[in-house]
């Protein structure tokens, strides 16, 4: 009998498997498709690969600004090449996970798992069913894109993010329904490749979870790239026959024809088909219920990653997978959600950690906000990337740094500094004498911190 079986080979599952194996457990990992899950195959990695192609193209087009003359009319995107770069990366990474499984002596089974009892699974692979027994289980089945209740994905016109990254050609027009993280990333990718993009978002702003001023900077930049943005707008009808969508904006009905309609209205935890009911595991549409150790109500069964709902990000999945596995191995580990960076790979990038300004005001009342604009940062100016700013939120009594938001070039790399500050529970006075290298984009973070204490030098 196995010590531990992990269901799902995405970030939560493979990290849990490796962690448990390193603790000496005999581990089997069951995956119905490819190792690496959404993240490697249809999420984080392929989108970032497309984005890198789009940005390289954009940068080349702007070479003139740096004093480089090109035959611009000859610069073109070779879509097959872009796809090749992407699949190549994905393949290498998936192979890498396979190698890690071997190295840690983890048995990988292909098939779809579902519970029969709280110690037994049925694993279906094509028409064969195999039963697998274990002492403990970790469910890491991930999530899948949510579809519109009135118009399911058809893969031809109405598509989800997985399909949107492998289109046969660069579309000439694209409707994106949902201006959240995934929608905005695709808007950035395709608008830079020349597609006419339209976003329809139900909330008042793009990226509803982030501060309005941060989201607004992105909106302005997307609009400069020709993206049409309709916020406070609701989709009313999809007509696949003539690829036309109807939506309401400010009481006015709009009609829009597009090559594709990408539906990115959120992802739902994959809770069905796992036989959770059979063993009495508590769950809802929002995900499987777990405690702070990622343990379900059935003590030998854990769940982690997108399948438990909450924050659906790969690095959260890594962390939860680790905690679940360690706890299953008798280590007293809790999940720490205190400092989870949120990254949005648009152009400009957006990244934040901790509270937004609004959340902080609700929680603390009077807070201190420090800001520094990249327009005053030398390194950003040199790179012609001076759009954006850093914003730091400080709690007034002890000067605790409780939030950092960055919109601008390399924000997703810079946010690591904020993550450390929040994770380390640092206060602004600890950071005052911090020396930021010059010239770097990091200086903007230091200046924002100083500004929050009324001591900014360069603004």
């Amino acid at each position, binding site marked *: 009998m196995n010590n531990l079986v992990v269901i799902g080979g995405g970030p939560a599952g493979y990290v849990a498997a490796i962690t448990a194996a390193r603790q000496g457990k005999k581990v089997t990992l069951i995956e119905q498709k490819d190792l690496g899950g959404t993240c490697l195959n249809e999420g984080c990695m392929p989108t970032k690969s497309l984005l890198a192609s789009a940005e390289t193209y954009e940068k080349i087009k702007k070479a003139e600004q740096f004093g480089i003359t090109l035959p611009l009319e000859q610069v073109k995107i070779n879509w097959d090449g872009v796809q090749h770069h992407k699949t190549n990366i994905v393949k290498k990474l998936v192979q890498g996970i396979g190698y890690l499984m071997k190295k840690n002596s983890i048995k990988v089974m292909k098939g779809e798992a579902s519970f029969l009892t709280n110690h037994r699974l049925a694993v279906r692979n094509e028409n064969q069913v195999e039963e697998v027994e274990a002492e403990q289980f970790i469910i890491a089945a991930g999530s899948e894109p949510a579809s519109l209740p009135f118009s399911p994905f058809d893969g031809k016109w109405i598509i989800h993010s997985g399909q949107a990254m492998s289109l046969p050609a660069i579309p000439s027009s694209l409707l994106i329904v949902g201006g959240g993280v995934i929608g905005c990333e695709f808007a950035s990718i395709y608008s830079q490749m020349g597609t006419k993009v339209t976003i329809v978002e139900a909330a008042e702003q793009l990226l509803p979870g982030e501060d309005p001023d941060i989201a607004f900077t992105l909106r302005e930049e997307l609009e400069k790239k020709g993206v049409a943005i309709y916020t406070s707008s609701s989709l009313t009808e999809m007509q696949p026959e003539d690829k036309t969508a109807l939506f309401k904006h400010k009481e006015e009905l709009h009609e829009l024809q597009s090559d594709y309609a990408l539906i990115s209205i959120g992802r739902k935890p994959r809770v069905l088909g796992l036989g959770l009911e059979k063993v009495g595991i508590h769950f809802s549409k929002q995900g499987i219920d777990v405690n702070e150790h990622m343990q379900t109500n059935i003590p030998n069964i854990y769940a982690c990653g997108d399948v438990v709902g909450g924050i659906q990000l790969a690095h959260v999945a890594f962390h939860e997978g680790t905690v679940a596995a360690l706890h299953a191995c008798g280590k007293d580990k*809790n999940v720490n959600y205190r400092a989870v960076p949120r990254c949005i790979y648009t152009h400009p990038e957006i990244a934040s950690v901790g509270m937004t300004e609004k959340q902080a005001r609700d929680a603390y009342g009077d807070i201190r906000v420090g800001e520094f604009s990249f327009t005053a940062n030398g390194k950003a100016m040199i790179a012609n990337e001076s759009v954006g700013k850093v914003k730091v939120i400080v709690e007034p009594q*002890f*000067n*605790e740094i409780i939030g950092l938001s960055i919109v601008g070039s390399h924000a997703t790399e810079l946010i690591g500094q904020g993550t450390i500050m929040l994770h*380390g*529970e*640092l*206060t602004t006075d*600890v950071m005052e004498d911090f020396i930021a290298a010059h010239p770097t984009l990091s200086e903007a973070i230091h200046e924002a911190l100083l500004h929050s204490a009324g001591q900014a030098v360069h603004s």
Partner: protein
Amino acid sequence: MAAEVVMPKLGMAMKEGTVSTWNKKVGDSVSKGDMIASINSEKIEMEIEAPQDGVILDILVQEDVGVPPGTIICYVGKPNEQLTEQNSSANELQAPKNEVAAAVSLEEPPANAAPSKKRKETVLISPIARKIAESENLNVETIKGTGPKGRITKADVEKVLAERASEASPPSVERDNLAINKETLPVAGMRKVIAGRMHNSLLNSAQLTINMKADVTDLLSLQREIKDVIQQRHKVKISLTDFIARAVVLSLQEHKQMNSAYIDNEIHLYNHVHLGMAVALENGLVVPVIQHAEKMSLVELAAELKTRAANARQGQLSADRMQGSTFTITNLGAYGVEYFTPVLNPPETGILGVGATEDVPMYQGDELQKRNLLPLSLTFDHRVLDGAPAANFLGTIKQYLEQPILLLL
């Protein structure tokens, strides 16, 4: 020869001063006038300058340890210069004083004095967790840390506080609220000095406050009339406070008893007026002093008041600008306060409190008019003078304010 830098005496009542920050360390070179340390004492924070070019040879007083004025805090001399016998005997002479200081700091260790610093090295704790623990007087050594390697996190401290709150009080609603709403702030730095001084002021004098209203309607219209001209000619924005200050200066010269100090059972009467003007800062208040205000015209006085208040707010007030006042004015008008009982700024005999002006209907002869009244509160030391002369003094101020033309002369 090496120069001694001593803890200055910044006021008669000063017993102790503290180096809050050393900007230099032993071996650093300095030029004459460089800021080498910040010290605080009384209501004052000030910078200590290097007395000559050279290097810091020795530092004798650590940060945050209180020492009496006159204590040598460091030596500035030539690189490699040996401190002479004379120097070291000075050290010995200082020794007893330093002991006193040590004894003082043992009795009441400053929040971040050496012992707690030592603990900082051995206890793994996040900065915010430490701050919260310190503000709640929690001994961090007793807290169980759940972070990496047992590091104490904010959540751990909050857990202890929640437990303490629930243990401390039976589950009655009011008690619970008390526990939750309780917040302790350390009384340190400027707050400590103000607390001590104000309490001593009340303990060591016989304070009595009397009130009067001055009709400043004409004064305000005069101010409106002349302010633009003054602004153009002298670049000074003249305010009601400036007129009040001038009225006080003139009245003090007519009532010498109020321009005095009670020191060691003697009453010292002054001919000059060194006018103290209380200025509220974010974390306390300071009283910049306008020396020889009796020699200044209204405009000069106004300009001086503006400069000093600005200096005070920027923390750039040197010690000599904060001592020797003979009378003080304090103004709570901006906060909407009418009358109040100002507390004497010892050893002065009087302090004038200024309130917020108020529009009232008043008969001028048979005619009802809208007039502007300014509430004045005078606290004086009853040991020095009695109610009647104090009332006369306040009456004179009132007269000046009601016949503002006299203030321009």
